[in-house]
């Protein structure tokens, strides 16, 4: 939480990189091996997802590349395993490794976009509620309270169901993706709104806000230029932890059958497909996407935990 005043008063601020490497946050990062490992895994996953098109031996979303004759092959170390299917294939002859890489891409895309949507919505509403107070505050916060009484996954399912029936039952993959982002965003905004509102209540009585008001700046400018940068610290922590939650929510929705279709699977869809073969000994169809999902969420959560501790002044 860089204070606006210190930066403006410093005679010649050092460069960003120098400041970052000199900070407490970086120090606490280099002290924790676990965090460094988690960050490495997270970056690896992100890179794998970004480069899926280059790395993977097959495009699992292109039905023309799937050969049914290659279906249900075990991983390469098994006697019946075949190249180039490192982690085996699913019931349609889809290479599991490629499917996981492409699935990661969808999971991360939905996660990031969902979080961005939730954060934008939550921050805006939180700022308005905190700064304006009165009826606006009461209205927004009561809606938030009501929504907090439901688990996020239920809200997501509800939004998803309503959106689908409004849009007319069957959707193409791109629309499904947008609906997923929308439903995840709507189910997670409350946390942002509440946190931001709390910080705004503290900030708005500080002198720099009073000064800004005194020189006659309009309320929207004060909110956006002066208050917002000072309340973003906690939001960053929530966003990181929410990213893991959003990925899990997307996987749950897909597992339940209301997310990505079988022809364009995300990690959750792959787990649902694999679940059908649990009893028949074809364990790799469910195991590998499951492991990938667990690792990804664990790594992001560890990074988020570290960020929370590092940014919490009381724990320093």
């Amino acid at each position, binding site marked *: 939480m860089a204070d606006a005043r210190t930066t403006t008063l410093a005679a010649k601020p050092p460069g960003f990189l120098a400041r970052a490497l000199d900070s407490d946050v970086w120090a606490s990062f280099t002290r924790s091996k676990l965090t460094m490992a988690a960050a490495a895994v997270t970056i690896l996953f992100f890179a794998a997802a970004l480069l899926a098109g280059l790395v993977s031996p097959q495009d699992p979303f*292109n*039905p*023309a590349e*799937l*050969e*049914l*004759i290659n*279906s*249900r092959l075990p991983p390469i170390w098994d006697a019946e395993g075949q190249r180039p299917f490192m982690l085996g294939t699913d*019931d*349609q*002859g889809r290479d599991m490794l490629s499917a996981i890489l492409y699935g990661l891409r969808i999971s991360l895309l939905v996660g990031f976009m969902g979080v961005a949507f939730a954060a934008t919505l939550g921050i805006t509403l939180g700022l308005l509620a905190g700064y304006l107070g009165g009826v606006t505050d009461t209205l927004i916060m009561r809606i938030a309270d009501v929504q907090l009484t439901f688990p996020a996954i239920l809200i997501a*399912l509800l939004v*998803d*169901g309503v959106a689908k029936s409004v849009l007319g*039952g*069957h959707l*193409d993959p791109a629309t499904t993706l947008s609906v997923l982002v929308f439903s995840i965003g709507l189910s997670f905004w409350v946390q942002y709104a509440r946190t931001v509102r709390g910080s705004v209540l503290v900030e708005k009585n500080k002198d720099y806000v009073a000064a800004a008001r005194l020189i006659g700046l309009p309320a929207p400018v004060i909110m956006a230029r002066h208050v917002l940068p000072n309340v973003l610290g906690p939001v960053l922590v929530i966003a990181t932890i929410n990213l893991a939650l959003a990925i899990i929510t997307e996987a749950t929705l897909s*597992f*339940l*059958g*209301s997310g990505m*279709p*079988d*022809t364009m699977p995300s990690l959750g869809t792959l787990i*649902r497909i694999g*679940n*059908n*073969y*649990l*009893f*028949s*000994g*074809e364990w790799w169809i469910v195991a590998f996407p499951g492991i990938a999902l667990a690792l990804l969420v664990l790594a992001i959560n560890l990074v988020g935990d570290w960020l929370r501790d590092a940014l919490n002044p009381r724990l320093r």
Partner: protein
Amino acid sequence: MPLDRGLRAFYGTRPEGEAAFLASKIAVSRNKSPASQSRGLPAENDRMLKRSLLLAATAAAFLSATALGAGAATVRYANQGDLKSLDPYTLNETTTNAHLGNVYEGLTSRGKDLAIGPGLAERWEMLEGGKRWMFYLRKGVKFHNGNDFTADDVLFSADRVRAQGSNFLTRVPKDAKFTKVDDYTVEVTLPTPNPIMHYQWDTWYIMDKEWAEQNNATAPTPASAQTPGHAALNTNGTGPFRIESHQPGVRTVFKANPTWWNDAKKEHNITEVIFTPIGNDATRVAALLSGEVDIIEPVPIQDIARINASPNARTLTGPEVRTIFLSFDQVRDELLSSNVKGKNPFKDKRVREAFYKAIDIETIKSRVMRNLATPSALMIAPEFFPLSKEFTRPKYDPDGAKKLLAEAGYPNGFEVGMNCPTDRYVNDGEICQAAVGMLARVGIKINPIFEPKAQYFAKVLKAGGYQTSFYLLGWTPGTGDPHNVLYDIMGCRDNPQSTRGESNLGGYCNKKLDELTDKILVEADASKRTGMIAEAFKIGNEDFGYIPLHQQALAWGVSKKFSIPQRADNEILFYWARKE
């Protein structure tokens, strides 16, 4: 729907078990909070703990008592699909017909070997070569609400089954005239002879006129109906079971009917059947293996070995007489979902032939069906047609398919939507996905519209306006005779006055085939008739109106304590079931 299924997959399926589990959880959590509050007061703590344990035990005992209270003769049945409507004229689908066959009865019945026998009609006479029929009704039969079964109910049912919105229009010929001779005799007259009129009357279920009128249910519920009527949620049949409660998508409870006319000679010892849909394959198998359900249909073919190896369950398998096939919209001038505008590519025979040749049936058989399917060149199972061996499928030939598409003016293929049910036939969703891949290799981009059967049937059937461009369907002729396939599936549907082609979702039409079909209906000479049937199927095959895929195998999973005859039409009928 998928949400529902998924949630059940998550939480398991057995309602009693779930309730007991939840009750004990609640009890435990109630136990926790007082205990933590009264830390340091051991006596108080202990008392609270005991009380809540008692509560948990009582709750569990109570719930298991209700579960066991119905006795050993409670059968739990799980199917992959739901029972959408209780109205016996809404959906002509084997699973639905079988469910309702426990509750309703037809004038005729079919035995374990599918032989036709008396039902609500004790006997009947065919007169004038099939132009006039006399049905003598069984006396002393009562509907579940106590009303007597009489000729009026037959006349009423004959009108209702042929009314708009019914999915059973071909069950009773449109021009058949029903006359009440007396309370227990019905005369049926036809303008043209129909010697096989009663062949599928075992699933034309007779409804109570008075009950339907009282409950404003004289019109059939269409499959596309958004709000179910009284008859879609309640039943009043004459059969061995009555439906005690019905929660669509959750569970349906059938109770034995002690006032059934044949109760004295009944073969079953079942007092209650609890039906739950379990969409997820693994969950359904787990429920059978753990003894939570007594019978599942279908067994996912990948799990047959696993079930046979278990100590308390086994599988019943056999060939099914159902033919799974693909077909196309051949009627509309522009397809509903395609990037080809202004024309319908499926009106071109070369395109249909290309689709046929792009499907690698042997790989579907070995990889998707794990060899539990018989590839078919015909729209009918060999059990119903002796000459079926003389027909062969055109060879799998993707290059030839590409060439044909290029000749037809689609060198780069085109896009088309495909409707496919995901919980109706064995591995239906997987078959469609495999077809998507195979067609992609010849340049056809399929936009999958794969849905649970409730949504699927609401769109593609007559009641939904045949909203499909390319679809997968399975068909078992209810009559056990090729005429049914030629009339219901392959007949032209261009005459709105006729019921011909009612389930011809793509509207394939060849007048020569229709002419033969009408001759086949009245032909008495068996070998001549078989020859005409062969000729009709040959016309259909040469037109490439359909892509027959295979006859699937029946696979039921049953508990070793439970026995039930497996009928080749895949109907699970509990009036022959026994449980130890």
